């Protein structure tokens, strides 16, 4: 339907050409994600020859894996880390695209409406107060609670946001944006208060948490966040048509047969789940959600049917690539990945702003 609307404007051959380009783009992106994944399994502080990596993976797949150190590095450290990186990168980029589609504003980002801050705050609460909230007799490490805390924080922020900005089943995007900024500021203030309450040690944990890292990715953690992120990624394509229609405006989308309120609710829930689970898995990682959709809209066009899967692929490739960089550049130590993504993302963001003002071609 929406393609038909677009078709009345652009010529049929141009659309065919664009579709071909989008298809080629998706294949290229899939190839990129695959290549980066291979690199991520092969590269690291421990030098393991490629043949050995393949053999270890084969042994692990056939259940013949031993307890050798190399095997543990590949299957216990790099593999869960790669999977977490793929899922979190894909989810953050898709969440950015969803949010930008919802707001019809290319600068929108989950960080903007306070969802990331809410998730980060809840994570901070578990770091600082976890020992006090959970009876020591349970013997639970606060770090175990962290993913749950972050997810609940992201969800709670989204629900508050939704409650504030929805009247009689209609969501006001402007109210939501402003409320999001207020909630983000509140979460920031509470995080500051937490930093004040925390002791020296917790403060350092809090700092590193806010910089983001995939270093904590283990199979146990993946078991918690992978189903959530996987479900988000699988559910997203269903919204592509609605997002395309929404880009014309809410009334227009309604007349195109899209149930606007349901689509908005779905988008909000998916963004909350994606961001909450991502923060839970890897801390606060900025700029992936804004850089990836932008880049792709420039490269393959704004059609969400190709944009969303392309975002997932490029987001995954970008984050895994950034992680490989973060953990090899200063090996045997590692950089927090948030530093790497911000170092790539911030200049790019500035370039976008300046470009919009006509200062760049």
């Amino acid at each position, binding site marked *: 339907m929406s393609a038909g609307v677009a078709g009345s404007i652009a010529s049929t051959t141009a659309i065919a050409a664009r579709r071909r380009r989008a298809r080629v783009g998706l294949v290229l992106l899939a190839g990129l994600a695959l290549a980066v994944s291979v690199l991520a399994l092969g590269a*690291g*502080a*421990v*030098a393991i020859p490629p043949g050995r990596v393949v053999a270890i993976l084969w042994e692990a797949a056939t259940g013949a894996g031993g*307890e050798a*150190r190399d095997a*543990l*590095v590949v299957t*216990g*450290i*790099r593999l869960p880390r790669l999977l977490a990186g793929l899922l979190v990168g894909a989810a953050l980029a898709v969440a950015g695209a969803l949010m930008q589609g919802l707001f019809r504003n290319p600068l929108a980002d989950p960080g903007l409406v306070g969802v990331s801050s809410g998730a980060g705050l809840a994570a901070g609460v578990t770091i600082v107060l976890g020992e006090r909230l959970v009876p020591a007799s349970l013997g639970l*490490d606060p*770090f175990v609670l962290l993913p749950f805390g972050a997810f609940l924080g992201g969800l709670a922020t989204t629900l508050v946001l939704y409650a504030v900005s929805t009247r009689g089943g209609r969501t006001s995007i402007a109210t939501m944006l402003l409320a999001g900024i207020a909630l983000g500021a509140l979460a920031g203030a509470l995080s500051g208060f937490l930093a*004040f309450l925390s*002791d*020296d*040690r917790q403060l*350092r*944990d809090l700092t*590193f948490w806010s910089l983001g*890292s995939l*270093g*904590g*990715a*283990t199979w146990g*953690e993946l078991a918690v966040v992978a189903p959530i992120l996987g479900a988000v990624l699988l559910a997203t394509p269903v919204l592509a048509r609605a997002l395309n229609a929404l880009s014309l405006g809410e009334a227009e989308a309604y007349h195109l047969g899209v149930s606007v309120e349901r689509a908005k609710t779905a988008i909000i829930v998916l963004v909350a789940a994606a961001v909450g689970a991502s923060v839970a898995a890897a801390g606060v990682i900025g700029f992936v959600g804004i850089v990836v959709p932008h880049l792709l809209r420039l490269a393959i066009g704004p059609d969400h049917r190709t944009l969303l899967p392309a975002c997932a692929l490029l987001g995954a490739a970008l984050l895994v690539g950034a992680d490989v960089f973060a*953990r090899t550049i*200063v*090996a*045997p*130590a*590692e950089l*927090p990945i948030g530093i790497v993504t911000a170092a790539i993302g911030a200049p790019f963001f500035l370039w976008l702003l300046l470009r919009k003002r006509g200062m760049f071609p």
Partner: protein
Amino acid sequence: MHRILAVAALVASLATSLATPAVASERLVSAGGVVTEILYALGVEDRIVGVDTTSLYPPQALEDHPDVGYVRALSAEGVLSLGPDRVIAVDAAGPPDALALIRQAGVPVEIVGEEPSEAGVLARIRAIGALVGEEARAEALAEEVAAGFADLAAAREAVDAPVRVLFVLSLQNGRAMVGGAGTSADAIIRLAGAVNAAAGIEGYKPVTDEAIIAAAPDVVLSISRGDHALSAKDVFSLPAFALTPAADDERLVSMDGLALLGFGPRTPMAAHDLIRALYPQVDEIRAEAAR
């Protein structure tokens, strides 16, 4: 008979030479400044294959060994890449996931307590000595350190009127971060026979100007970080500090941070330096008493 003794001696020497090399060739990763300091003091620095970024003493520790990163943000693969047989870490080391993965790879991670006290220092030295199979050297070092503490206690006896000391970790925009109760700054102040003027606060916290005036320190204690040392002028030109008794004689004591706060083998020495800085007359009083 002689032959039996000779054989016994041979067996014994073989047994020890077989037992020690196993430990003596062990590759160690040290995570925590105080661990590295004690490993060097025990003379086993050639077994270290990696240290964390807080291993600032001796200074060559970080120059001579790969840096595995900040003690609370270790990388499991990074540590394993050094092929260690054992990781010795302070209890602040983490994240827990990384330590769990290192253990899973068959590398024991030994945790050493960080309690800032006399007993804590001695226990740490002995524990690390036992881990690296240098019990005798550790015992000798512990006795030496214990003697230092005993001497320190005697010097404390000679202090008649304890002064109030405020430890300032940093001054940011004129706002002081001070060391309250439970910090190693608090512990070293008390070891030096003084009173922590910020004892009412828990941990390292930024405080208001009024709190500084209310604390009424006789001396301000800070740490010298290379060229970042606070000068008396920096401190006492601030209104809050200008109104404290310490400002009258501009009494600022600046000391090496790791020695002061590290609670390792150098602690008695650092506390002694502090006591001399706080009570310049203390050595005379002791000499008098000895006479």
